[in-house]
């Protein structure tokens, strides 16, 4: 798991319940560019220097490493859009999640939705899910156990209310 931060844990507007959460990203795009290009320039300059002296076999390794670094930053960028959201409005419960290139939006009837929070030990290692029609969807991936327990209690009261 690489999630870090939960934003806007729960809020209400005009009777609707909205929960949104996303991972923390402390690296801004300009910082990312600075880090990547500084490392790439350093590696390339050194490899190129040796290559110009005839020791060219440093070049492919520098290239591979810069490629791996580029891939790593690309994956990090791809994760910037990760989020999970749960909305309860009227009789409709909407679940949305997006991780990397995968994502899903699921709607269920509030009266059929069931909240389950299973902890392996009391208050620890908890897994929160909302299920309907025999299919469970996990919620609160980016939350701590305390956060999941709190969200479970809120959801139960919301779904019953």
């Amino acid at each position, binding site marked *: 798991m690489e999630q870090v931060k939960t934003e806007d844990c729960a809020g209400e507007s005009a009777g609707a319940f909205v929960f949104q959460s996303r991972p923390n990203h*402390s690296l801004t795009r300009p910082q990312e560019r600075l880090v990547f290009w500084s490392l790439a320039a350093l590696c390339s300059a050194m*490899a190129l220097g*040796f290559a110009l002296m005839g*020791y060219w076999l440093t070049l492919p390794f520098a290239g591979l490493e810069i490629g791996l670094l580029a891939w790593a930053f690309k994956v990090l960028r791809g994760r910037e859009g990760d989020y999970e959201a749960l909305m309860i409005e009227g009789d409709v419960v909407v679940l949305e999640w997006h991780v990397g290139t995968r994502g899903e939006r699921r709607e269920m009837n509030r009266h059929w939705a069931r909240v389950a929070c299973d902890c392996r030990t009391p208050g620890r290692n908890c897994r929160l899910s909302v299920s309907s029609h025999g299919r469970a969807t*996990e919620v609160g991936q980016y939350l701590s156990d305390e956060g999941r327990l709190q969200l479970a209690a809120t959801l139960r009261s919301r779904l019953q209310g």
Partner: protein
Amino acid sequence: MSDAAHAHDDHSHGHPSGIMRWLTTTNHKDIGTMYLWFALIMLFSAGTMALLIRAELFQPGLQLTNPDFFNQLTTMHGLIMIFGAIMPAFSGFANWQVPLMIGAPDMAFPRMNNWAFWLLPVAALMLMSSFLLPGGAVAGGWTMYPPLFIQGGISYDLTILAVHIMGLSSIMGSINIVTTILNMRAPGLTLMKMPLFVWTWLITAYLLIATMPVLAGAVTMLLTDRNFGTHFFNAAGGGDPVMFQHIFWFFGHPEVYILILPAFGIVSQIIPTFARKPLFGYASMVYATASIAILSFTVWAHHMFAVGMPAAAQLFFMFSTMLIAVPTGVKVFNWVATMWKGSLTFETPMLFAIAFVCLFTIGGFSGLVLAVAPVDIQLQDTYYVVAHFHYVLVSGALFAIFAGIYYWLPKWTGHMYSETLGRWHFWLSVIGMNIVFFPMHFLGLAGMPRRIPDYALQFTEFNQIATVGAFIFGFSQLVFLVLVLKTIKGGAKAADRVWEGAEGLEWTLPSPAPYHTFETAPVVK
């Protein structure tokens, strides 16, 4: 949020147990633990080789080994200690501590983290098994200089492959650490608020990423010289063996700082805790670390004054080497200033940290002596050099590792270690270490060459003293092993904030730190 049937990598739910847990784990704490155990096993393996070396050197003449096997021992001791013990130990610390210190739930690339670790035992197995090959293990020195490394048997190819694999592991680990530190810091934890240990690892990871392609290229060129008829370093074909030394040390000197910067970080965490004062000159410590890293690219040829180079080049490398003493001096000054008028207590981590400051400084000073080109030409390849780098790497890197383990072990295991055993380990190690390596200065000044199993009679007494010290130092590490095992098994319950003066996010967590931590990022004010 995801479909429960395709849930994310959550180890708390139905994760494998037994050996599969350790093979497949992506949890930073599990991987950190594996790195540390691996490093300890390698420390004992390479340490046993060191004891064999010292046993042989107890008296002149050949007792236990033949010269070739002796050189295999010295070569493998160096390679395994550097790539198998010290570097993985610091990676273990990084895995355990970096996410806890920056408020992240794990590393940025947990699966890559798993791969980075598991490459290491493969490489270590390759290295160690080369003892069983025809011709034995590599005997050309850990620096892999041609022509010896071009002429050796199959174990040389195996060693080159092992170095490649360890380099790949280091690159994957470093990219993971850089991305984790930069992208997963808790809100409010700006760069200049990061703990010094995190800073030193960030800079170390930069150094690793910058230098690893150079090492990979160098050893690949050795490989092609050996097997594919190229002549990069083969003088017989017009190649230049001295150029290998330039390329190797262009990697090798930054590597020295890769081995010591995380040690600076650990000590910079410990001293303020036991002095109950904030670290003196935090910003200057960060800039000093960065300066050391930058300067490390400009000093490589001080390892090879004896091969011959123009006077201007000798002067340049001499002065640039001396320049490194400035940021290093800043660090030593700041550690001492942190202790100055502090409310000091001397638990085992602090004892090791103080020993680090004193003894590493001795290693630094002998380095300054060697930086002087005319002196270095006299002392090159003598025991003075052996004394110098062991003061830097044993009382520097290794003592910082011990200090860090004593410091964070209660957080990792949930139990306090035995302070009595810790003190026994400390005093035996410090006394033993000085008995081994201090006389080597005199041996070197008297002209005893390194990597030789036999020696002139005049060197006997100091060698005997060093060997006695080596066995004291070596066997005292068994005390450490017993202490670690006892602490894992039980002991007094550790508080969340184990040390009264400890500051930082890791101390806000329960002891032992739960399997999953900081799933919700803390906010740092």
